[in-house]
């Protein structure tokens, strides 16, 4: 890879394009497009490595743009931004092959976290579409998190191996509280990495937290340890398993 990575930001709000350029401009080549049509042209002409796009765009939906772009270049790393009201759509977007989504309004750090992981994904040439080495019986939210239904009706949740590869050394975890209610597409866990970023991970399912993997508090890097069964983040009692599983990718 020579030179800077190129990122295309698509949003109908100028202020968001400007702030993206300001925040990301120092490390990346930032291209911007105000609508789906301009975005398509730039995609074809400039072949960016990363795309950040709003789900709701004038012209065509971000989802459509996502489908078209991925068809053209399956290796493209796409981050979708979205208002809260379309969290469900965002979950669907992850199923369609988006790398991450950022609920608006987001902070500078949240944007940096997502973009940092996207850059790693590009550098590692993580192919998002292909099935990962996930275990049978696992359900994935995009490439980010997994859910594994257990026999007793509870579900284990964790972060995928692919996602972990995009992270620097993990130095801390912010686990959910026992008894808390998680929502599909809501926050599952926050991972603090050595580059000073905090990476929020989206929960693949909604439900009540029954237990958390407390071992991670002292040894966050255990999360990567595929050899033992301690990779999980939390065990939940799902609230609507049948309704939410179809939004996930079965491995």
């Amino acid at each position: 890879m020579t030179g800077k990575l190129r990122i295309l930001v698509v949003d109908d709000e100028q202020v968001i394009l400007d702030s993206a350029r300001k925040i990301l401009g120092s490390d990346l080549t930032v291209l911007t497009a105000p609508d789906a049509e301009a975005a398509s042209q730039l995609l074809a002409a400039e072949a960016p490595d990363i795309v950040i796009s709003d789900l709701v765009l004038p012209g065509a939906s971000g989802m459509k743009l996502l489908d078209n772009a991925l068809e053209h270049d399956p290796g493209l790393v796409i981050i979708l931004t979205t208002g809260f009201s379309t969290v469900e759509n965002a979950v669907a977007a992850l199923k369609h092959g988006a790398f991450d989504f950022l609920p608006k309004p987001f902070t500078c750090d949240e944007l940096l976290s997502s973009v940092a992981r996207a850059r790693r994904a590009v550098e590692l040439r993580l192919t998002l579409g292909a099935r990962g080495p996930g275990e049978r019986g696992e359900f994935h939210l995009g490439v980010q998190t997994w859910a594994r239904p257990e026999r007793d009706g509870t579900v284990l949740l964790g972060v995928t191996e692919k996602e972990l590869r995009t992270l620097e050394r993990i130095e801390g975890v912010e686990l959910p509280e026992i008894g808390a209610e998680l929502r599909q597409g809501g926050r599952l866990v926050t991972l603090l990495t050595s580059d000073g970023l905090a990476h929020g991970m989206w929960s693949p399912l909604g439900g009540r937290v029954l237990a958390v993997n407390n071992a991670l508090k002292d040894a966050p890097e255990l999360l990567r340890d595929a050899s033992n069964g301690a990779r999980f983040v939390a065990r939940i009692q799902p609230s609507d398993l049948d309704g939410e599983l179809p939004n996930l990718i079965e491995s």
Partner: protein
Amino acid sequence: MTSKISHKLIVGVAGVAIVIIGVFAWVILDSQQRLLLSDLERSANQLSATIKSSTRDDMMLNRPEAVQGIISTIGAQDGIEKVRIFNKEGRIILSTDPEDAGKMVDKKTEACYVCHTADQPLERVPVSERVRIFKTAQGVSTFGIIDPIYNEKGCWQSSCHAHPKSQTVLGVLDITMSMADVERAAREGRARLVTFALIAVFATGLMIYWLVGRVVLQPVRRIAAVTRKVAEGDLSQKVDVRTSDEIGKLGESFNDMMQKLADAQRQLLQANKLASVGRLAAGVAHEINNPLTGVLTYSSFLLKRAGKDSELKDDLDVIVRETKRCREIVKGLLDFSRQSVSERHPVPVNDIVHDACRIVKNPLSTQKTTIVLNLGENLPLIHADASRMQQVLVNLLVNAGDAMPEEKGGTITVTTDLVDDAGLGGASQGPREAVRIRVADTGSGIEKKDLDKIFEPFFSTKGTRGNGLGLAIVWGIIEGHGGRLTVESEVGKGTTFTILVPVARPLTAESRNRPLP
């Protein structure tokens, strides 16, 4: 329509009255007639007896002129038409009417056929058969009575004229009397009676008209008037119930219905308000998110770059913090707009209460507020979305905690029990029961004027500490469960929120008594 009912009623009742009064009149007229006739009969009988006894001696002595004299004297009396004596051959031997003298009749005439119908003529016939009523050639109603003159010792022993001893009937005394007087009396009686009957029918009709108007029509009109007002949209109308009869009951159930309707409308209104606020919230959130993103990214970016410049850093901190607060408000709005009740399962209500209490326990204990649980045992499961119901209780508990006096704190009592379904939407499924959850606090209470507003989105008395969405969300969730939420409050004493949630399965008497498998 009401006038038609009254017409029908009046016509019906008047018809019945006419028939009854008519039958009465007829019976009375008939018996009156009988009375008159029997009077007539009796006096005629007496008359004939008198004639017979007074003429007996003259007959015996065969003095027809003397007999004729007596008969004429009697026959001259008022009302007596004719007095005739027939002999056995049918000859009129004596009569008050000189023209009749010597006329012959046969056994078929009215004076004779009473006895001469059968082969063997009758010797004696009762009075009732001896009388007859007929019309003369002049069309005058006439009453006749015959009195047979029997053979007796003096007659057959008499030398003058021979009546053989074997003869039983010597002749017949026939008296006819005009019935003009009797008929006039009857006519007058009938006229009086008919007049009376007509008056009675008319009076009954009037009375019924009045009664129907007063007892049926007026109340029905009152109800109808209220109904019209209601139809025009005024749901506050009430029927003035004055009686405890069926119409009073009708009025009562009408009022009851109005109450339910008003309740339903209020709930509908609230639900509609919530729905439109939900849509509004989603729209506002979407619009506001973009500028908010600009502010948040810029300010957090600047904050990052501010480095050690502490004064600038502090200012930027404020901006980022406040923008994040905006983000939370928008998030709350969206949560509210999305508050669908997703998955309902049979769940134990007391578990939900316990979980909710666990969540609020810490913050409440720092406020010196204690929670007292008063949970019913063996309650049936409720059909509910557990996490939503928990959200409801947490909201109510937090509000109760907020209402407590700052220093002193207070007590929150949570009660669960089973009650008869008080009109929860399920009438078609027979008798149902509901679980009642009450959250009672000893806090500040809510002013009357605010009671109607507390469920409205954005109504809050807590300034920046409250968004006023808590109870709106609670309402929406309970609504989504087909439940009921009510509040009672007294300023200075405290507030009680009451929730009714349908039980998981309708319990019939049968299924309850059946042993569990």
